[in-house]
């Protein structure tokens, strides 16, 4: 199990790093899906198979499909990859690097000072516990999430529709309603 974890972790890190350096959007998207899948594997090793399934179905499935739709609709050609290359400059990495180092320092400090708990709780939480918790103490959160999704639906629908009305000569309207 440990081996599986470290391997999946390595895949996740590498593929994620590749996502942000890719010039082609579609390639980046594929690497992102890979990263999400490896994250699902990690979830399984951490004893959360239900979440792993959700990760695959919703994240790697539905959400990524949305990206694919949009990319197809934008119909980005090869010149956009060239432009990406032009935009990527070495100096741009300096600021984020500093931020990352600061955050690393925080994490290391936290891990160093936090009390060590030996071992883990015996049982992993399965779908049953998750469901009970979800519709027990977190009921309000569930309702809020549904409201949020509704808002997202209405918002994206509105954005897509207003495009059509504002720019009638632009022809068909596109995605955004694919939630």
């Amino acid at each position, binding site marked *: *199990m*440990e081996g599986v*974890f470290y391997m999946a972790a390595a895949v996740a*890190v590498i593929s*994620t790093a590749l*996502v*942000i350096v890719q010039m082609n*959007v579609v390639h*980046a998207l594929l690497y*992102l899906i890979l*990263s*999400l899948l490896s*994250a699902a594997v*990690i*979830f399984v*090793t*951490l004893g*959360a198979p239900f*979440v792993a399934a*959700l990760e695959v179905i*919703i*994240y790697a499935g*539905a*959400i990524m499909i*949305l*990206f694919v739709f949009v990319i197809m609709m*934008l119909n*980005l050609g090869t010149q*956009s990859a060239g*432009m*990406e290359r032009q935009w990527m400059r070495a100096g741009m*990495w300096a*600021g*984020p690097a500093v*931020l*990352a180092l600061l*955050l*690393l320092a925080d*994490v290391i400090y936290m*891990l160093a000072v936090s009390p060590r708990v030996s071992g*883990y*709780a*015996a049982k992993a*939480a399965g779908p049953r*516990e998750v469901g*009970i*918790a*979800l519709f027990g103490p*977190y009921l309000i959160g569930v309702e809020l*999430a*549904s409201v*949020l999704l509704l*808002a997202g*639906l209405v918002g*994206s629908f509105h*954005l*897509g529709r207003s495009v059509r009305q504002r720019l009638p000569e*632009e022809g068909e309207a596109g*995605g*955004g309603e694919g939630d």
Partner: protein
Amino acid sequence: MAAVPMEHVFVLAWVLFITGLVGVLVRRNLLFILMSVEIMLNASGLAFIAAGFKWGQPDGQVMFIFILAMAAAEVSVGLALVLLAYRQFRSLDADQASRMRG
């Protein structure tokens, strides 16, 4: 199972999160920025799962589900905005959409 030290999981979450953050800050393409945001959300979800696993509680997984719902809503609106911006500016350059400075 369960022999992986928690610190390693957290470091992994950190690496993923930082990668996403760097992506947001470095890329100018709106689509890449959105993807990077997804990476960051996923990384934080990983941290929740790890914490829940550590204490044997389902709460971490519940949080992940909430994050998932939020990500779905965010992506749908974000992508609609990307489309809109592309129509408006004929480009996905985030820096070009700076005309409404006040």
